[in-house]
């Protein structure tokens, strides 16, 4: 009996204090770790949104810079215009640009279809229309605005397009981005 008594471990109070301290530290650490994991997931979602946004803005900017004037109203509704909001809808823009894949001019349109940014191009040679999505379903575009300035050739202002993008990615990541693009072809009266 004496031997058993000498090998006795901890008392009940010691155990309770030990378990309490262990639980407090463990729950604090687990909470911190869970918060960090959540932040990491959100971080990856923001990076994905930024990557897609940068790509789509760069793609649209390059196309809009190289726009040509419509001298025969074959793409836009009026002759002598460089850009046009389709049906006066500011979430859509139409213009003519050289299509390198067809080696001919095409009528381009950027528009928003169910939260996805879409590009459609109609060949001015064959009339064939092709459509492609520029953003994935992971990215919901809540607002897309194209504000036009000097789009008509009858002014002395070089055509400019202001692009406003308001989007939401995974994990509720939000991003609002705005930029301006000016046409590189000089807009002289023809």
């Amino acid at each position: 009996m004496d031997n058993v008594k000498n090998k006795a471990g901890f008392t009940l109070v010691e155990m309770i204090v030990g378990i309490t301290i262990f639980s407090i530290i463990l729950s604090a650490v687990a909470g911190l770790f869970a918060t960090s994991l959540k932040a990491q997931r959100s971080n990856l979602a923001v990076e994905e949104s930024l990557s897609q946004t940068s790509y789509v803005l760069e793609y649209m900017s390059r196309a809009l810079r190289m726009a040509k004037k419509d001298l025969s109203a074959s793409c836009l509704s009026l002759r002598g215009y460089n850009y046009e909001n389709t049906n006066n809808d500011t979430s859509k823009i139409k213009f003519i640009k050289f299509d390198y894949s067809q080696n001919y001019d095409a009528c381009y349109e950027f528009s928003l279809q169910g939260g996805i940014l879409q590009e459609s191009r109609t060949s001015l040679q064959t009339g064939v229309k092709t459509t492609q999505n520029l953003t994935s379903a992971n990215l919901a575009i809540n607002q897309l605005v194209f504000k036009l300035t000097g789009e008509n050739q009858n002014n002395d202002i070089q055509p400019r397009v202001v692009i406003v993008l308001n989007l939401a990615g995974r994990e509720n990541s939000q991003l609002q981005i705005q930029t301006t693009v000016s046409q590189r072809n000089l807009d002289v009266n023809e």
Partner: protein
Amino acid sequence: MNNIPMFNPSPQKGVSIFFSFMVMTLLLSIALGLSSIFLTQVKISRDIGYSVVAFYAADTGIEQILMQRSGPISSCTKISPCFLDNGAEYFTVVKTPGLDCNASNYCITSIGVYKETRRAIEVDF
């Protein structure tokens, strides 16, 4: 002498508390280490987000005055910058050839600012 515990320490005593302490320290170190890495990444990611917005604001500044018919005239200055709808702002500085402008016609510098992030673009032609 053998009856005095101090001189005859049992190798079994105190092992549990030692292991518990070691496990807790290990857990705490791993959790704090990973948290620190994740939080640093979150800060970097947030800064990249601000950087993208500031860069496009700076790009706006260049595009607004680059193709002006009468030459680039800055209407958004450091004292009175221009504001975008998303809260970013920009200002431009136009210089003619001289000591700090080694170009044929103009040197345009545009600075975009979003929160604490600034990005600049310079165009010489």
